[in-house]
Each structure stands twice: as structure tokens, then as C-alpha cells.
């Protein structure tokens, strides 16, 4: 018996995750050395790190909550700085300052150059977006088309944020947000 039908692959071959791709910029260029180390988790998901110590990268993908219109993230950025600015009242000449790493520095003036000082900064990032339901495939099921509305953050080390591409493309790591340090 010959039958009229088309064979179907029943397994899901497509990505269902909707990630916002963030690139960090320092001095207006993307440098992998802009961030020495990076940690991130969704607020409320402290036990499930998205990034757990990533060295020398400046591009990150954060998963958006597809069943909400807002996602909140806690970011920990460890940067390398070569300059520490101290207030005038601090530290008489020849004072010794202990740094996070076992380096000691001799102060000569209020602003001084150091080597390999690691600065740990915590930032909160909030992303809001609109969603429209769509079929990914009958094998994979449904997801949402996500368009970013706005992104804002605390400003401990982040200087400004720019929405370069508001459309989230599933499975593609194309930049959506520029964060300038």
C-alpha cells in the first residue's frame, strides 16, 4: 500500500531561549579587557548563576523571562584599574594603603598610578520589553517575539546605556544593548 504523506522530523531542532545580548564598552571601544571578571544572575534566582566567573570578555547573553514583561539581573563586574583617586583629606605622604590583593602602595600624591588593582562593582540591570506569541515549530511549540522597550541600571561603574537593536532574535548572538563604562 502506497500512502500520500510527508515524513516529519519529530524532534525540536530550534532554540527556544530569548537572550538579550549586551556588549560592554570602555573608552568607546569594545575591549575584552574592559571587564576582568563577570558574574550575573536573575534577581530571585540567586542559586542559578547565569555567568559564574568569566574572564576577559565584554559580550554577554542574559535570558529574558518570557512569561513577564520585565527581567531584573544582578551583575558583578570586576575591572582592572590603574588609577585610584583619593580625597584630599586622605592619607599623608608616605602612607601605605593595603589593596584587595596583597600589593601595598606608597602614596606620593592624592592621585597615583597603581598596577593590577581589581575593583569589584555591583550593578542592577532592569530590562523591559513587549511580547507577541508565535509558533516556533510544531515540534518545538510556542514562544514569544520580544522587542525591548527600555534598559536601565544603577550607575556605580556604568556610565550610559544605548539600545542598539530592540528585536531579540532567538538563537542569534547579535548585539541588542551597548553599556558604556
Amino acid at each position, binding site marked *: *500500500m*502506497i*500512502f*500520500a*504523506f*510527508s515524513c*516529519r522530523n519529530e524532534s525540536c531542532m530550534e532554540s527556544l*531561549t530569548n537572550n538579550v545580548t549586551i556588549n560592554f564598552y570602555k573608552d568607546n571601544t569594545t575591549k575584552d579587557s574592559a571587564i576582568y571578571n563577570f558574574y550575573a544572575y*536573575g534577581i530571585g*534566582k540567586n542559586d*542559578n548563576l*547565569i555567568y559564574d566567573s568569566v574572564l576577559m570578555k565584554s559580550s554577554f547573553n542574559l*535570558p529574558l*523571562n*518570557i*512569561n*513577564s514583561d520585565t*527581567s531584573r539581573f544582578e551583575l558583578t563586574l570586576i575591572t582592572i584599574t590603574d588609577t585610584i583617586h583619593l580625597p584630599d583629606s586622605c592619607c599623608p605622604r608616605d602612607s601605605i594603603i593595603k589593596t584587595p590583593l596583597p600589593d601595598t602602595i606608597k602614596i606620593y600624591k592624592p592621585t597615583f598610578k597603581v598596577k593590577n588593582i581589581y575593583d569589584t562593582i555591583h550593578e542592577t540591570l532592569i530590562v523591559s520589553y513587549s511580547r507577541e*506569541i*508565535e*509558533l516556533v*515549530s*510544531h515540534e*518545538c*511549540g*510556542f*514562544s*514569544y517575539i520580544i522587542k525591548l522597550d527600555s534598559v536601565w541600571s544603577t550607575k556605580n561603574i556604568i556610565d550610559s546605556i544605548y539600545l542598539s537593536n530592540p528585536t531579540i532574535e532567538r538563537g542569534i548572538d547579535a548585539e541588542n544593548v551597548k553599556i558604556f563604562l
Partner: protein
Amino acid sequence: MQKMLKYFFSIGALLLFSGILFAQSERVKGLRLGVDISRFALPYIQAEHEGYEVSADFEIKRDIYLAGEYGVESINLEKETHNYISDGYYFRAGFDKNFMKSEDPSEYEMVFGGLRYGFASQTHSGNTIIIYDPYWVSESSANLSDAACQTHWIEIVGGIKVELFRNFFMGWSVRGRIRLAHSGYSIMEPYNVPGYGNGAKKSNLGLNFSLYYRIPLYKQTVDYKQTED
């Protein structure tokens, strides 16, 4: 005049000795109706799929047939992430060419190839849709109401039709389809387009197995070339 008669008889004698004769005979024109019997087994192979197809062909000129098919198909698909329902109809219209040469005017068997234009119209909906986020561990549900889709395609067909006994035929055909245009696919593409196949693909293959009955309609006188040994 005498020269004309001389040439006339010479040509006649030449044809007689070469053994080629042109004779007039009668060929019965008829409408051949068919049912795709493979469709009755579909629910046993793909439980979510049900459909029926009828066909017709009519010889408009020796070995050239006007041909077409009409059918209905429905889908009732249950998955972990959603339920899907679709109902629709389709038709295909075109021509078949019989490549099996026969000198018998009462021969209606075919080894054929042909072309079709295909069109399908359907409504489909997605119900009890569950969307799960594995990182945030969140879930939402939705329903998509009925949406209408249309699909157009061209089709190349080839097959055979064999006469089992007087006016009853059996045959199969293989079909290659290429989609030309579609509408209504924006939120949800059809799981299956009636008469075409997998809605996610730009081309499809199909097979049919059918039984036919040829209804004799009228006789037509035709010229037949007969070769004597």
C-alpha cells in the same frame, strides 16, 4: 487529368505494398472517476490526520487528458506544549499526457506524466498552549483563535492506470510539489496543508493509490494507423 489519375493509382499501389493502411475506428470517450484508497489507511498511520480525495480525468485529444483532484483534510494534533486543529479543502487541476502508445482504439490504460496547479484553503487554531521558561521557572498559557490560510503550488505528476476489468482501473502516482505563494502563515504556519503536505516546507513529495471507474459517454470516430506484417 490523365496524369492526375496516373499519380493517384501509383500512390495507392505504393501504400498497399508497403502494408500501411489508415482505417477509421470508433473510440468511446468517457469520464474516469477515482478514489484515493490510501487515504482510508491514514488514521492508522498518522492518528492525527484524516482526509479523502476523489479524482477525474477526461480525454480531450488522443493521449491528452484534462485531469483534476478534489479533497478534504483535517488534523487534530495533541502535543505536550499545545493542541492543534485544522480543517480544509483543496483542488488540483491540470493535464496528463499518456506515453503508452497503443494501436487499439479501445485501450484506455495509461503510463502518464502531467502538471497540476494546486490550491488549498484551511482554518486552524492552537489551543491549551503552554510556554515554559527553564531559567526563570515560569509558565504561561494561551490560545490562538481560528485563522484562515491559503496556499498555491505547482505539481509534477507521473504514474500508471491499469484496467483490471472492463471500465475498472487501478493505479498509483508520484507527485512533486513546489509552493508558489501562501497567506495567513504569520503567527502560526500550518502543520499540514491539505493536498500539499508539510506546511513548513517549500516543496513536498506525495504518493497516491487509487481505484477508478470509467463512465462511457459517447463514441467518436478516430483515424488509426495500422501496420500489416
